């Protein structure tokens, strides 16, 4: 057995020591004699969150299937251990071999949300790797980032050697080959980065210079500073999702992870074009996995993990063509055998309710709807194709089926939002409650409970709203108050509950989402002041961030609240996600006209993603 990196004294003193010991079911063990590339794969948050992430499990499986490569895992040490490691100068280690991250050839970091940026610096710092790419030497691992936030990598570009833009299954083998080739040729770190930059989808920030307009501080343009490096970076996409890596033997943590279940990704991409949704835009085109592939995987993964639950994952599961067959297979195969099928946010219709009543205890479960906006006008602006009638009809059949708890998700601060739209959130919640009380008392199941939650709208890169202004923290709270006041005026106010998100965090998230390279200073200053685990409410220090923004001389108005002009060059414009800027601009204009765009199944809107050779429009053509 491998000796833990931490002593008994430390492990006995910290919370949940099993976060740091490795040795979980299905952990890969390799003889280091057979390994010539060591890859540390990091999720920069606490173990239970990181272990719940499907992408890491896919890449862990893929890397470890490569000959000579050993992929090990790293997560953020929680505050208690973080303090001890700093005090006692203990270097950050991987779970598999319990050896220092610094010994690895690569440190890969998945970047799933903006509020983990300070944790990225923690990982580098505790590993003893210089925070800035330009300060690293031949002794340091190559630091590579991937995941959704790399669609605007600029606020953290200075901290990374390479970004992988797109889906991880495609070009990592090429990168490993380049690394070996460079080593054989006794090449330097920079030589390797040059090789990497020529692989499609890989972005080396050091080879790209950004110039700014003197008068207004916006971006003037990008200049590649090394011949042979492409001007644009194209997102990598897996077109055949039924013949690719998928972890048949996912890791099973000892402590309960947030996702304590088998996660079956049924498709990627989304046919709907919600204008606020980055995932919906950057993961186009829609690609389904074969039904037989999914059945086979479900059986193998449940057998190899022993999990009691399987959950289907995708952006919009109801749009998967074989959903009924898949659910029927799972229920038939596993019902009564101690395996639960947990359903992701499905469209509520008679079929899904029938399925749910088979797999869940109706009295305990609640139904979730995401209308995203309170008024039909606002829903047209954001292109959310869910009508009031859909919601009320869904609720009605659910109430008749015995449900009495409903959760409604909304956004506040959407472009063009009026007070009427805000009040609409309360009014729609009221209509849902009223729908319940239309049912005869004898057929109802006690009182109804309607919970409305609002998050604050944050414009994201590569969405039609990338041009949109964002509210200030103060304005967000004003709007929440309008909703809350209206809630209190409703007839069924005692059945309604309203929650709203923290405004200060949203403002910082907005800055990091659409920031440029100048914002990296803010991240560094915030980290040095003590910001860490910013995604955890209790750990978020608004005052440190405000100080960091002031000290870096950054204007929140410039990054968040102003509306960007149609001609503006964005920090992320050198990336080609397949979806064109012209399409996004068309959609931005249509949103201002309150015009809805059809989904891919109804009619192609010419987003550009068919260039990858897939998607519904592409299949229809061929």
């Amino acid at each position: 057995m491998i000796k833990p990196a931490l002593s008994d004294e430390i492990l006995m003193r910290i919370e949940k020591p099993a976060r740091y010991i490795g040795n979980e079911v299905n952990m890969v063990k390799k003889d280091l004699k057979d390994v010539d590339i060591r890859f540390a794969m990091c999720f920069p948050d606490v173990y239970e969150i990181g272990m719940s992430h499907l992408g890491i499990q896919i890449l862990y499986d893929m890397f470890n299937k490569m000959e000579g490569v050993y992929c090990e895992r790293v997560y953020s040490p929680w505050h208690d251990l973080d303090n001890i490691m700093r005090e006692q100068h203990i270097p950050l280690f991987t779970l598999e071999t319990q050896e220092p991250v610094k010994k690895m050839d690569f440190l890969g970091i998945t970047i799933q949300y903006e509020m983990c940026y300070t944790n990225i610096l923690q990982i580098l710092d505790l590993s003893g790797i210089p925070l800035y790419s330009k300060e690293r030497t031949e002794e340091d691992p190559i630091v590579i980032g991937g995941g959704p936030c790399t669609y605007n990598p600029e606020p953290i570009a200075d901290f990374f050697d390479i970004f992988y833009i797109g889906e991880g299954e495609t070009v990592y083998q090429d990168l490993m080959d380049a690394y070996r080739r460079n080593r054989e040729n006794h090449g330097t770190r920079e030589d390797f980065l040059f090789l990497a930059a020529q692989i499609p989808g890989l972005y080396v920030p050091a080879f790209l210079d950004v110039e700014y307009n003197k008068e207004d501080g916006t971006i003037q343009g990008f200049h590649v500073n090394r011949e042979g490096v492409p001007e644009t970076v194209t997102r990598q996409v897996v077109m055949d999702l039924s013949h690719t890596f998928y972890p048949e033997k996912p890791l099973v943590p000892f402590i309960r992870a947030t996702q304590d279940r088998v996660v079956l990704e049924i498709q990627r991409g989304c046919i709907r074009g919600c204008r606020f949704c980055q995932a919906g835009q950057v993961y186009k085109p829609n690609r389904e996995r074969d039904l037989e592939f999914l059945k086979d995987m479900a059986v193998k993964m449940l057998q190899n993990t022993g999990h009691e639950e399987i959950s289907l994952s995708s952006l919009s599961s109801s749009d998967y063509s074989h959903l009924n067959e898949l659910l029927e297979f799972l229920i038939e195969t596993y019902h009564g055998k101690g395996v639960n099928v947990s359903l992701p946010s499905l469209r509520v219709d008679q079929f899904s309710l029938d399925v749910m009543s088979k797999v869940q205890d109706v009295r305990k479960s609640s139904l979730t709807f995401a209308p995203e906006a309170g008024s039909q006008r606002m829903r047209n602006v954001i292109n959310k194709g869910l009508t009031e009638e859909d919601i009320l009809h869904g609720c009605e059949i659910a109430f008749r089926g015995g449900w009495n708890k409903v959760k409604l998700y909304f956004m506040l601060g959407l472009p063009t939002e009026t007070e009427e739209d805000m009040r609409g959130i309360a009014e729609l919640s009221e209509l849902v409650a009223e729908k319940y009380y239309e049912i005869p008392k004898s057929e109802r199941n006690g009182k109804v409970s309607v919970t409305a939650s609002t998050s604050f709208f944050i414009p994201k890169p590569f969405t039609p709203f990338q041009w949109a202004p964002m509210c200030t923290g103060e304005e967000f709270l004003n709007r929440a108050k309008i909703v809350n006041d209206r809630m209190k005026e409703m007839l069924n106010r005692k059945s309604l509950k309203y929650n709203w998100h923290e405004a200060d965090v949203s403002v910082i998230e907005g800055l990091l989402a659409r920031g440029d390279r100048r914002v990296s200073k803010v991240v560094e200053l915030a980290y040095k002041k003590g910001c860490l685990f910013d995604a955890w409410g209790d750990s978020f220090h608004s005052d440190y961030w405000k100080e960091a923004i002031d000290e870096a001389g950054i204007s929140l108005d410039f990054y968040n609240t102003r509306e960007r002009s149609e001609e503006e060059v964005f920090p992320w414009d050198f990336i080609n996600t397949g979806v064109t800027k012209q399409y996004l601009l068309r959609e931005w204009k249509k949103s201002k006209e309150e015009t809805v765009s059809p989904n891919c199944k109804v009619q192609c809107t010419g987003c550009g993603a068919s260039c990858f050779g897939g998607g519904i429009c592409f299949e229809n053509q061929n």
Partner: protein
Amino acid sequence: MKIRIKFTKTGVVKYVGHLDMMRYFQKLIRRANIDICYSEGFNPHQKMSFAAPLGVGVSGEGEYVDIEVNTTDSSEESVRRLNEASVEGIEIKSYRRLPEGVLNGMASVAAATYRVRYREGYEPDFSLEDKFMEFMNQETIEIEKETKKSTAVVDIKSMIYDVSFQNGVVLKLAAGSAANLKPELVFTAFYQYLGKELPEFALEITRLEVYGNSGTEENPEFIPLEDFGEDIPTQGE
């Protein structure tokens, strides 16, 4: 049919807490395709009960869990499958059928043996064996035990059944619901007797075996819990 499983919890898995060990076994049983019984209802539970929870940081070489199964393969085959599906440090030692009428693990626990060693760097500056025997030779061994409301003085001597010295101090102590003595408490009393402070983290504790009582209360006969069960032979043998 009731089955008693004996297993180890050694190495880093000693940092896995009791609730997580329960979850671990639920999943292990499924991976090993043991035909365990489930309770009725919307959230069926496996019929499973652990003999005695082990604190985080304490190793175990003879831990027990009882399960109820519909059908079963032989002991040998079941042990093989469980070990194939298990991790380093959690090793299945035996899988035996419990005859009708045997109390479940939790209820039948009467005693346990522990090995207490000093961690590296914490070795005592006195002869452990001599001092410990002196301590044991006292008429009574009194210790203040804190309860929720007050502190009470208890004599723990009668709960120490046996002391030997092999690779540390091996203590056989009362365990279970009637009387339960933890080795840490014995050492706290020992250090009070010495007039010294027991340094934090000094001790490394391993539970070696858990026993049931097959004798009477007055004349106990402690036998390892696994000995209450019998091996299931391979079909045809």
